[in-house]
């Protein structure tokens, strides 16, 4: 068709007209010239470069990534299952009390310390110091290498250098002195002895910064043997203590608390309730538990004891030619009553004295002797090794050092430059000693001056043993490989003696030689050793020490010294003690059990004394010796007004202001208004040790004639509790109830014979509006806190902190009342000047049945569990803080900032079972839900029900007084449900029907009913 009819179609007239150039142009595709860029970055170049980049990136991606050991056990260590906790029995070395403990290991690292419930001396308790000593392991300030002249070195080099010097000293008959604290490890002690034997002139000098040498010296005088009796508080029905804070810091507080509590159990059948009278100048936690507490000045103690001894001697028919005694500073009648009580409890009473005056301690021994307490409540046949210091020998050493007579000085376990009165002088003398070696874990004042530092392992890294009291030998085993190149004292000494041996071998050798023969239950040493390692201790039939009969010659009556306007009393604080734990943030932030102050030491003054000086809390005062005013030996401290303290006493805690605390300068959140935790000198608190007096062969902790002057400065104290009583402030009193029934007390006669006591604030189930709102048919967890048993020692607070990854926030945050502790101990005073009663009330989340926090959370971040727990879901929490506002007990804690560990190594101590909370999230006590779950899983695996007592919360586990009981209240046989039915039980704010799951058992005071009413509240 198209061929037959070639009809030309054209597109435009130009085409039709077939112009030549048009046709030319139409053939070309592009009418304009196409410019191809040739010199620029063309398409092909682009593709090449892109190809290269992709190839290069691929190649780079093929290279080996840095190895991250996400799976720690490619070769599974024997017996270790990831995620499962193991416990190793060990012995605490937080102080020289050597309490039994268990080390909880997760994935081969220790994460928690607990008391060893089978330990015959401490019976399962562990104090705040013991709990916190875990952080000492994960401490980046530790020496990880031995040091020579301030530079890291190797053990070989150090050994070579020191043995060379020692050879010379041996040849020149130079004096070698080994200065240590009380060494409770018999093996180490033997090792030191053996080492010193290799020198012609050598002596082991032992002193305790918190010395009890007067007790040992007094026994040398009265019983012919320098020993520390083993006090048996559980056997005493009447306890009289003169300034001995035996529940807080004196010698072996965990053991004494357990024993004291055993003797004070009003629920037992028949009820046991010892009578406890405390004579003291300041307010200690021991005084806070006393049935009768008498304020006396430190200079009056000897006098009161003399008066008491005289009365008892009269009853015993012992003739004394004591004439012209000074009159007692307290009513004669009261002293008569006390003597009568003691006399009635002959052989079942105990008089203890914390005074560092040998003559006073001799009187104390005399009283105990008159009462027949030796062999009953004081064991001197199997004495204690918890204090071995001899201040006389210390004084002699100081003289020698001063005279430059010492050729070599080794120090271990003490920090004399810091904790001795003449620290600066000691430091100067040290510089003249040719060879100074310090065995220490971390840099301190003394190690800074030592030519050689022998880096010592942490307790959890090495083998050791301990014999706190004769007959009970404990073992300590490593729970982790040493984090640094460290070596225990006994190994180092073995190396220096030319026979290097591991601590393990040394221990085994000595145990085989000395300990094994003292027991009969095991036939083979290996079996005995295995059992001892497993148990953490061995009870052996030790040889009884030989003591003479009582020597009257030493006993002398004492007159009171003349009173001074102010005398200074230096005391150790729970937690910090002599300052050896000043590096420990948990202990620094632990509120003092009585004052509730954190992070600082301060000058305690009685309210009357503060009024006299016209100072209030936080005003800075200068303390100096009146005789040496202006000599520079002064200390400036903020005032804390302490009810119940003697009006002529200013009390200051030891252990502060050490180099160890310099690390805390920037602890806590950093923001532009944050203040430093440390003071002007970059340290926490001020060192009061220069006021300790080494006189008459004893370290004295009280000084007369102190001048107290108001400097005009102010340093507010980071106190967690600002209101001291359960009564409303005087200016806000209204007719009606001004004393809140939060703390309830009763007296022994009322408890035994009276009615069960008006149950103030008991919840009334009849008023229940929603009876079946959320019934818990399975378990219903509940807790009972025995306020009568609680001493306020605060071990639970640190235990909770360790268990639940509670952060440390620093002084500034504490000043802002933002403590993060899930558990706190509220402390209330009642009564007037001379008769102050103290109540300690541990407070944790009350896990309310009708929880006010639960209804107000907008996002359901806090809900009720079927088991009666009030759960907080951190990752759902948006942080409105409404729950905390609505919590009547204010037990909730808010993460105001991101609280990171200032020392990231401390993250190793985190409990992997407990989430670490981020900023902006509310948190609180969970009743240790991770422990509940663990116990439930374990029971389920065995196909059993969870046994009563199988779950122990962290606070309960560590409590030396066993004041906390946890269990299932739906199980009528459980201890907790029995105690909840007790006549002493009450719920705090029970009248509001929050239905808390925590019951409190009333405090029982062993005093007459009428007295009780007077003091009640």
């Amino acid at each position, binding site marked *: 068709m198209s061929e037959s009819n070639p009809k030309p179609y054209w597109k435009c007239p130009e085409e039709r007209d077939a112009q030549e150039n048009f046709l030319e142009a139409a053939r070309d595709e592009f009418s304009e010239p196409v410019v191809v860029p040739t010199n620029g970055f063309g398409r092909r170049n682009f593709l090449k470069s892109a190809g290269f980049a992709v190839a290069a990136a691929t190649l780079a991606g093929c290279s080996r990534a840095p190895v991250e050991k996400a799976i720690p056990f490619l070769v599974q260590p024997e017996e270790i299952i990831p995620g499962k906790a193991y416990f190793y029995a060990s012995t605490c070395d937080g102080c020289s009390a050597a309490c039994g403990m268990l080390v909880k290991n997760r994935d081969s690292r220790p994460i928690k310390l607990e008391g060893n419930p089978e330990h015959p001396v401490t019976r399962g308790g562990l104090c705040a110091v013991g709990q916190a000593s875990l952080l000492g392991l994960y401490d980046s300030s530790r020496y990880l290498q031995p040091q020579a002249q301030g530079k890291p070195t190797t053990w070989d080099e150090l050994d070579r250098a020191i043995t060379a010097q020692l050879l010379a000293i041996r040849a020149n008959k130079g004096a070698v002195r080994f200065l240590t604290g009380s060494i409770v490890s018999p093996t180490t002690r033997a090792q030191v002895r053996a080492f010193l034997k290799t020198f012609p002139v050598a002596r082991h000098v032992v002193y305790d910064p918190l010395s009890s040498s007067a007790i040992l010296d007094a026994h040398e005088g009265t019983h012919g043997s320098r020993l520390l009796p083993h006090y048996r508080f559980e056997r005493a029905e009447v306890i009289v203590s003169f300034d001995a804070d035996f529940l807080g810091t004196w010698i072996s507080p965990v053991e004494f608390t357990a024993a004291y509590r055993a003797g004070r159990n009003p629920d037992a059948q028949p009820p046991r309730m010892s009578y406890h009278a405390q004579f003291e100048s300041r307010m200690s936690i021991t005084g806070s538990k006393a049935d009768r507490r008498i304020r006396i000045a430190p200079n009056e103690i000897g006098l009161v004891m003399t008066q008491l001894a005289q009365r008892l001697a009269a009853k015993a028919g012992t003739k004394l030619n004591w004439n012209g005694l000074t009159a007692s500073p307290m009513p004669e009648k009261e002293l008569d009553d006390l003597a009568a009580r003691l006399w009635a409890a002959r052989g079942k009473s105990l008089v203890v004295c914390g005074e560092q005056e040998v003559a006073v301690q001799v009187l104390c021994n005399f009283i105990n002797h008159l009462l027949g307490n030796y062999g009953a409540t004081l064991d001197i046949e199997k004495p204690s090794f918890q204090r071995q210091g001899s201040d006389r020998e210390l004084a002699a050493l100081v003289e020698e050092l001063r005279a430059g007579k010492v050729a070599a000085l080794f120090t271990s376990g003490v920090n004399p430059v810091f904790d001795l009165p003449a620290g600066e002088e000691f430091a100067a003398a040290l510089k003249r000693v040719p060879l100074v070696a310090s065995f220490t874990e971390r840099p301190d004042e003394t190690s800074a001056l030592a030519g050689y530092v022998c880096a010592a392992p942490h307790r959890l890294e090495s083998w050791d043993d301990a014999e706190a009291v004769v007959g009970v030998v404990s073992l300590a085993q490593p729970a982790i490989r040493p984090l640094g190149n460290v070596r225990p004292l006994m190994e180092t000494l073995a190396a220096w003696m030319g026979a290097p041996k591991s601590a393990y071998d040394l221990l085994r050798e000595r145990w085989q030689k000395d300990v094994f023969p003292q027991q009969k239950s095991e036939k083979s040493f290996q079996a005995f050793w295995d059992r001892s390692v497993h148990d953490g201790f061995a009870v052996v039939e030790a040889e009884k020490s030989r003591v003479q009969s009582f020597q009257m010659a030493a006993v002398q009556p004492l007159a009171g010294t003349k009173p001074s306007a102010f005398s200074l009393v230096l005391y150790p604080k729970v937690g910090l003690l002599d300052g050896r734990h000043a590096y420990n943030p948990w202990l620094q932030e632990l509120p003092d059990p009585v004052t509730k102050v954190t992070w600082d030491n301060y000058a305690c003054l009685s309210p009357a004394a503060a009024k006299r000086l016209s100072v209030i809390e936080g005003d800075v005062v200068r303390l100096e010796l009146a005789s040496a005013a202006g000599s520079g030996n002064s200390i400036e401290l903020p005032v804390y007004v302490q009810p119940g303290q003697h009006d002529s006493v200013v009390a200051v805690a030891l252990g502060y202001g050490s180099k160890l605390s310099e690390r805390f300068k920037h602890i806590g*959140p950093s923001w532009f208004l944050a203040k430093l935790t440390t003071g002007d000198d970059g340290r926490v608190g001020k060192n009061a040790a220069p006021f300790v007096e080494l006189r008459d062969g004893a370290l004295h902790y009280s000084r007369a004639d102190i001048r107290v002057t108001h400097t005009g400065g102010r340093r507010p104290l980071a106190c967690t509790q600002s209101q001291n009583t359960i009564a409303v402030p005087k200016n806000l009193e209204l007719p*009606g109830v*001004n004393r809140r029934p939060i703390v309830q007390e009763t007296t022994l006669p009322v408890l035994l014979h009276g009615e069960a006591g008006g149950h103030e604030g008991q919840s009334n189930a009849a008023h229940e509006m929603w009876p079946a709102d959320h019934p818990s048919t399975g378990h219903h967890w509940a807790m009972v806190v025995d306020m009568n048993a609680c001493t306020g020692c605060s071990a639970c607070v640190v235990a909770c902190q360790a268990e639940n990854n509670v952060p440390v926030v620093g002084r500034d945050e504490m000043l802002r*009342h933002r403590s993060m502790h899930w558990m706190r101990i509220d402390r209330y005073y009642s009564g007037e000047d001379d008769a102050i009663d103290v109540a300690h009330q541990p407070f944790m989340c009350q896990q309310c049945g009708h929880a006010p926090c639960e209804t107000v959370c907008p996002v359901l971040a806090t809900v009720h569990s079927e088991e009666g727990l009030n759960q907080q879901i951190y990752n*759902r929490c948006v942080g409105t803080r409404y729950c905390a*506002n609505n919590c009547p007990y*204010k037990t909730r804690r808010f993460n105001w900032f991101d609280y990171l560990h200032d020392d990231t190594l401390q993250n190793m101590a985190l409990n992997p079972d407990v989430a670490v909370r981020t900023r902006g999230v509310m948190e609180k006590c969970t009743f240790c839900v991770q422990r509940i779950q663990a116990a439930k899983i374990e029971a389920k695996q065995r196909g059993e029900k969870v046994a009563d007592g199988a779950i122990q919360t962290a606070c309960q586990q560590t409590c030396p007084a066993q004041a906390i009981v946890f269990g299932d209240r739906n199980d009528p046989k459980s201890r907790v449900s029995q105690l909840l039915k007790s006549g002493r039980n009450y719920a705090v704010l029970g009248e*509001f029907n929050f239905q808390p799951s925590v019951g409190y058992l009333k405090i029982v005071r062993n005093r007459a009913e009428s007295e009780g009413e007077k003091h009640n509240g």
Partner: protein
Amino acid sequence: MAEAHPVLHQPWIAGDKSPAQVTDEICANMERHPSAAWWIAFLVSVAVMIIGFAAIGYQLKTGIGTWGLNTTVGWAFDITNFVFWIGIGHAGTLISAILFLFRQRWRTSVNRSAEAMTIFAVMCAGIFPLIHMGRPWLAMWMFPYPNFRGPLWINFRSPLVWDFFAISTYFTISVVFWYLGLMPDLATVRDHTRSVWRRKLAAILCFGWDSSYRTWQRYETVYLLLAGLATPLVVSVHTIVSWDFATAVIPGWHTTIFPPYFVAGAIFSGMSMVLTLMIVARKTMNLQDYITPRHLDAMCKIVLGTSGIVALAYITEFFTAFYSGNPYEQFAFWNRALGPMGWGYWIMVACNVLIPQLYWSRRVRTSVVAVFIISLLVNVGMWFERFVIIVSSLHRDYLPANWTGYAPTIIEIATFAGTFGFFFTCFLLFCRFVPVIAISEVKGILSHGQPRGLHHAAANEPSGEGKPELVGAGALRRATGEVRP
């Protein structure tokens, strides 16, 4: 009819203005260049706002710890400011909705700016619940939205959830109501302005308002309906805010009197804020003829009345505490008045109860200076009322061991100041870009051209240029069902 007695009732708009004059005068503020005073005020406001937002930024970055709160006092400045600003907002809704329904014709002069104030105040208030959260980036969890986290819902028992709904509803209604009322005026702006962009913008924003009878009729029906809807909100929002406290167990919070007490307080403070703003506005924008001492007088009477309610609430609280026999409750109130934060209580009593009594005097009510000072003091007092309720109840609750104090940090103060900066920035922009007085409504109450004491439908009046708003003003009166002679 009130207007039937001219001797007793002066006209609300002074100066016998013609409708055209009204349009000219009100639009003039938008059309002329801003004054130096405006610029200074604007720059200061913006500067303060920036400081405030910087403080908020720092707090968001660092943590709530930058505030002075503590374990016992978990809310202080944040929620005080929140309740304060919500309270400020209340007068706007009251004026625009309740007074509309009650035929309080003087409201026409102030309703536009009062509503604007409501919106800005609610925006300021809304900042605080958001930033007071520990983790504000999770604020959407307050929404009941479907999610994949299992049956994870919000807690409908929590007053904070109610709060969230109440405030978001309130804000939405306020904005819609305000914008609806603005539409005839935007049409006026469109027709009046010489600026091209303003005309185009207004044309879009007024949704092609054609001033037809049908448009007016529908407009006024919707307006009336919205007024009816907004009215319960005046009561509900602050009632629900008060439940944050009333449903809690803290002595001093746990009280049934809070809803009416809070609503009265909110109207009290909101009216005072309107007075403060109007006194400044009439002076600086030459609106003396529109906001006359008679307007101030009427508002002062409301302030006086609500002051009485608030005073009664203060007394009742103390009586209830005394009569309850609950020692914790008794102590909470005794501590409120005589405790360490008692000074706050007495500032509150002085500013909220004593000083407003001056309004019994007509001379005070009509004195611009006196009203200005008193209105400022009332707002100080009302801020302290919230502070006293929140902080003095919290800081000393059940267990004395937990008692603490509270002091704000510079961050909190800057944040609070910043919300004022934000508020005034918004308000100053509002004054420049929107007719501050409801032109169409004001025309409805002009006395111009009317026989004294008589009412005429404005549509019958000679309208001059025959501007659509005249029709509107008349239609408004018809639609609102006013009785005519």
